[in-house]
């Protein structure tokens, strides 16, 4: 139930970000200066922290999505859905924690 709620919330978040991301990338078609100004926003410390949240949303949505596929298609999927939830959380932490360190070093190290 809660993984379903979280899957919806992270999904909507990522979809809305996608609109912004396509538009900021479209600035490469305007001029190098326009693009560099747009992408400079992403290097701002406050936005840098929001990117950590965005990557958290990507990782959760990705791994929980794989879990949903396994529940639907693997004959033992429904039986092991709880164990797979622990797998989602474990895999999430293994990738997310190093990323937080790496990304914040990049954002605040300049």
């Amino acid at each position: 139930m809660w993984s379903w709620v979280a899957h919806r919330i992270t999904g909507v978040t990522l979809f809305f970000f996608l609109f912004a991301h396509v538009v900021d990338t479209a600035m490469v078609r305007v001029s190098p200066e326009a693009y560099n100004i747009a992408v400079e926003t992403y290097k701002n410390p406050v936005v840098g922290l929001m990117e950590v949240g965005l990557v958290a949303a990507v990782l959760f949505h990705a791994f929980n999505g794989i879990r949903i596929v396994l529940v639907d298609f693997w004959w033992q999927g429904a039986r092991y859905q709880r164990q797979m939830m622990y797998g989602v959380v474990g895999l999430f932490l293994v990738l997310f924690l190093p990323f937080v360190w790496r990304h914040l070093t990049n954002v605040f190290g300049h």
Partner: protein
Amino acid sequence: MSLTSIPKPRTPYKAGKSNNFEMNAWLFMRGSGLLLVVLVIGHLFVNLWQGEGIQQIDFAFVAGKWASPFWQVWDLAMLWLAMLHGANGLRTIISDYATKGTTKFALKTVLYFATFVTVVLGTLVIFTFDPCIDPASTLEVCTNK
């Protein structure tokens, strides 16, 4: 006088020309989702983890990546799959929470319009990108001119 033909009892139910749209949408979410796991996490790894991460991203970085058809195809696939996956997800959410028919229709119209415009914009950007509008470009295609 015309008679409606009544099928015999126990005639198996035939869906006839039924619309499999919802079934296909359901399958698409799973298929595109698995591809997006690879595409998006790969995208984040190259752009945010490798090198100087977020600090390295500028026009030259994008030009360097899109000089290769590999990243053009990668980004195009990611754009289309992510937009359609997200649009279908939001379509489901609108169907679940909007109660009035007119609200549903209005929200879905906005959703489809925004999705269409964004997919077209992104596709045009990838296909018409010109790295040489940067006079300082050191890419071979630009310096050979």
